[in-house]
């Protein structure tokens, strides 16, 4: 068995040496017509892939083994879920977390506060997109467009009319919703990936218009000097204003969690999930497909619009470069990686994906390489996301009794690529 593994790893190492040979070893300089042979890399690749193949195999075996270990009757609930359900653990944990969240900006540097605020922005974005993708099952690759709408609403309204942050915050949310409906109407009858490409296109259209229509949006040079949110006219130092923004974002995130959680367990939320599962059956159950999808779309967009205002206020400068497709892709990754349909999952996903590149700064130029690799590895070894969604369950005592208690336990397998 061991010999077999080593053999296989040798083969893998040989394959990767061969595979990476031209790119890793040969460096051509067509301008000077020099070719440099970096043989040393060959050894690096060989040794690296040899080692990694063992790690990979180990992890693969573990993944397979994990399934096997759980016996037939064991409750199929992951540890995290069990902990979350246990009030003895849950309540103190929540308190500790609350204290930490509150103390955070007083313990860490402005930089840490700043990136945490950014991460919180993405938490809200992720939760917003989760409504669209995770609950309603509409693959939206242009979500960042609504974020841009919010950000530009603030920047432009402030620039032209001097409107303040608090005035524009609801306006931004409203504009997001408007654009959500605007896009939603024509395209919601599209299925799956066709919807994906159209939303991607829509996202690009918005960005391109912002980039090209100078008279309206100031083009690629963007809008500067956007004021930070005010607090009864108090002027803040950088440090203090970072803290203020942080707490604003915490509040916004809590608000989002509250609303999304309620929506998810409501009549509308159920309709979204049902729509994701089977459109035809849904209609046959009396659900208006278009209206329901549209609400999901518009609601998702509302959060993006709202948090877009926040974004503009935080960076104090915006230009179209912040709203590229890659941004949408990252937000989508947050949702999927965290675990579709799970609020806790999305929060963790956002923290991981946004803080990761920041903490990977230590690896300087290898930062994004590692980031990409980690995305792949996380998906391969945890395809259902960090935390998988759960369905609400109800307890009944007996015939004719009222539902007495509600809690979430049944693990919800995300929809698979089943062709049946």
């Amino acid at each position: 068995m061991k010999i077999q593994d080593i053999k296989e790893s040798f083969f893998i190492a040989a394959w990767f040496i061969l595979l990476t040979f031209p790119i890793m070893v040969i460096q051509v300089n067509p301008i000077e017509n020099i070719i440099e042979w970096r043989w040393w890399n060959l050894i690096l690749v060989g040794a690296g892939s040899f080692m990694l193949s063992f790690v990979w195999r180990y992890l693969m075996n573990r993944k397979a083994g994990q399934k096997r270990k759980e016996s037939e009757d064991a409750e199929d609930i992951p540890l995290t879920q069990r902990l979350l359900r246990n009030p003895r653990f849950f309540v103190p944990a929540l308190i500790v977390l609350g204290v930490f969240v509150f103390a955070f900006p007083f313990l860490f540097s402005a930089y840490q506060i700043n990136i945490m605020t950014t991460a919180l922005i993405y938490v809200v974005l992720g939760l917003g997109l989760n409504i669209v993708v995770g609950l309603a099952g509409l693959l939206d690759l242009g979500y960042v467009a609504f974020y841009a709408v919010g950000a530009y609403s603030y920047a432009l309204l402030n620039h032209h009319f001097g409107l303040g942050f608090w005035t524009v915050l609801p306006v931004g949310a409203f504009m997001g919703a408007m654009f959500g409906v605007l896009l939603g109407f024509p395209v919601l009858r599209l299925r799956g990936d066709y919807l994906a490409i159209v939303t991607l296109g829509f996202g690009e259209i918005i960005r391109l218009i912002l980039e090209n229509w100078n008279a309206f949006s100031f083009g690629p040079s963007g809008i500067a000097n956007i004021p930070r949110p005010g607090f009864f006219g108090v002027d803040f130092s950088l440090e203090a204003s970072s803290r203020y923004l942080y707490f604003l974002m915490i509040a916004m995130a809590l608000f989002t969690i509250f609303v999304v959680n309620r929506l998810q367990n409501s009549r509308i939320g159920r309709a979204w999930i049902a729509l994701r599962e089977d459109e035809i059956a849904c209609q046959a159950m009396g659900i208006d497909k278009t209206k329901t999808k549209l609400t999901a779309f518009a609601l998702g967009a509302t959060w993006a619009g709202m948090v877009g205002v926040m974004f503009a206020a935080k960076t104090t400068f915006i230009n179209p470069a912040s709203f590229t497709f890659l941004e949408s892709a990252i937000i989508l990754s947050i949702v999927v990686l965290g675990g579709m349909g799970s609020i806790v999952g999305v929060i963790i996903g956002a923290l991981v994906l946004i803080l990761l590149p920041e903490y990977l700064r230590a690896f300087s130029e290898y930062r994004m390489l590692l980031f990409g690799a980690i995305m792949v590895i996380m998906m391969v070894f945890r395809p259902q996301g960090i935390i998988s969604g759960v369905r609400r369950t109800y307890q009944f005592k007996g015939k004719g009794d009222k539902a007495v208690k509600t809690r979430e336990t049944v693990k919800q397998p995300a929809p698979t690529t089943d062709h049946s």
Partner: protein
Amino acid sequence: MEPILEVKDLTMDFGGLRALDHLDLEIDRGEIAALIGPNGAGKTTFFNCITGIYIPTRGDVVISPPGKKRERINGLKPNHVTERGMARTFQNIRLFPSMTVLENVMIGRHCRTRSGIAGAVFRGPGTREEEQAVVDKSYEILEKMGLSRFVNELARNLPYGAQRRLEIARAMATEPFLILLDEPAAGMNPQETYELDQLILRIRDEEGISLLLIEHDMQLVMSLSDRIFVMDYGKKIAQGTPEEIKNNPVVIKAYLGEEIDA
């Protein structure tokens, strides 16, 4: 007898293929009717046409819900048809597989409840009451259908027969006056079929819901139906009581075969 569903001259073409051919049909209030016919006769297509999934090439579909006005419903979207009180099940089971059994039924209550986004967020007393009522009513239906022990199971993990019953439960949750069942007994063993038989009778007798079922299990059809319609090649070739149909030579030739195992 007061008809609650009247179909006149219903025709459906798929390209060159005429799946329904000038079909006329009536269902009376409180009736259990059956629609039978060879494979490919157009039975499922008939369901699809009257429930708004397909738009028929021509013809009229008129409903007269008890206590409400007569209404022409062709061209309505499926959800509107359901709102007006016609619910259905599917030949290939179409549940919401990763929702729980209770939630599947709760979805059926959707068109009979109203709370919107604001209600969901603020969760005022009205919404809470409505939600509680949805849960209670859904559970009640599940109990009636003998599914209460599965409430919190995911629909996809249910045995086949239970899934069929769940589909019926879900349809009942929409408070229909007429339920259309497409091969409800398919994949059930005789024992389960017998239970289904009893269940359908109970639905009619206790809830006062009329039923139209498509079925190939003649034993079930003959024992349940008040009236049977027979289709072949998109046309109605016969109609009558089980006795009449059993002995109708046209039906025997086209569908039943020489002897019946009933």
